[in-house]
């Protein structure tokens, strides 16, 4: 069985956009070890995106009968409203607290989602999920440690983490709101597991989970925040300005 192209692109886009955001930290991390940590995580996230885009390109070409789509054209030559990533990952980095919280909320979601995809009928997706899960476990560990450190740290770090939660929480609901092409994982079950895990970390970090917050949706269907256009302008600049440039 083969998953629909839209769903594979959605998975790939989540990773590419998060990787692009995190990549901004390269050379700017708070200390050298953490600079290396977030860029290593980014490399994993981007590597996973590549495996998914390669698969998407194969499917795309087999449908059209010609070989014009590649992992690169999918990343560099699609328009903003063709990207299907969740709004959460395109949100600007803000400070370190917002960056690590975004990583944690996403990695924790990706962990439970890929656990389910590991058993999916699409063998290629199952193989990618099994491989990625090993890496995602590290990402969850690293990012949750930072949520604890900052949440249960100083008054300043606690405030910053609280502000990060206020900025990001409204984008978490979308991860569990299925798009029409998204019928391969039980998002209700995943949300329960995710909420339980996040609750435990937040409690230990002396942080509160916001209640009754309005949840923004749209990214999965190509309706994005104003931030994505700017991000893609950076990401796609070279291929748009010098078509087919290679190095």
């Amino acid at each position, binding site marked *: 069985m083969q998953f629909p192209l839209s769903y594979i692109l959605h998975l790939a886009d989540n990773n590419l956009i998060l990787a692009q955001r995190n990549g901004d930290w390269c050379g700017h991390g708070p200390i050298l070890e953490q600079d*290396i940590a977030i860029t290593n995580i*980014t490399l*994993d996230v981007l590597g996973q995106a590549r495996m998914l885009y390669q698969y998407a390109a194969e499917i795309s070409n087999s449908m059209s009968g010609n070989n014009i789509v590649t992992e690169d054209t999918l990343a560099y030559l699609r328009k903003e409203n063709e990207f299907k990533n969740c709004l959460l990952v395109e949100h600007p980095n803000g400070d370190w607290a917002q960056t690590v919280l975004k990583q944690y909320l996403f990695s924790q979601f990706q962990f439970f989602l890929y656990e389910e995809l590991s058993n999916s009928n699409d063998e290629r997706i199952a*193989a990618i999920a099994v491989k990625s899960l090993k890496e995602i476990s590290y990402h969850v560990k690293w990012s949750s440690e930072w949520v604890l450190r900052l949440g249960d740290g100083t008054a300043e770090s606690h405030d910053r983490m609280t502000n990060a939660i206020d900025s990001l929480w409204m984008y978490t609901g979308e991860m569990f709101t299925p798009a029409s092409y998204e019928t391969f994982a039980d998002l209700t079950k995943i949300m329960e597991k995710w909420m339980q895990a996040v609750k435990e970390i937040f409690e230990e970090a002396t942080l509160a989970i916001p209640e009754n917050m309005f949840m923004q949706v749209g990214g999965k269907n190509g309706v994005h925040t104003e931030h994505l256009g700017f991000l893609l302008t950076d990401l796609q600049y070279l291929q748009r300005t010098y078509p087919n440039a290679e190095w």
Partner: protein
Amino acid sequence: MEILNDTITDVDGLWKLMESIPDPEIPVISITDLGIVRTIELQGKNVEVSITPTYSGCPAMDMIAMQIKMELLSRGFSPVIKTVLSPAWTTDWISPAAKEKLNAYGIAPPSLSTEKNAVVKCPLCNSSHTEMISHFGSTACKALYRCNDCKECFDLFKCH
């Protein structure tokens, strides 16, 4: 590239050739030591080598695929390099001999995935009195450690 006189006629010879290709990041061990080469098929002059990535984003993979291709081309073969994802790569495939080579090179080798809470020994002074500095070291596959006895920092090849 040097073209060797010894001609390779069978799959065993091809495996020996793969054993001679070093990992680009850790040149003391080969790509077969790491378990990257999964299968080799030979039909006439056509060779199909299946490799599996270590970490999804490992930048050495493109270079490894290129090295394999160049070695085979220089011996007159028509190579096809395929990437396989399943079963997912694990450090359990690294042989005991290769682990010793890693240790001698200054990288603490990975424990087996079945060993829980294995002690990380300093590859320089063999002390067990070590602590982790960061989950992430100089490459995706390594973590950064410190020895509390000889005070040196070292890399651990993470169990994966």
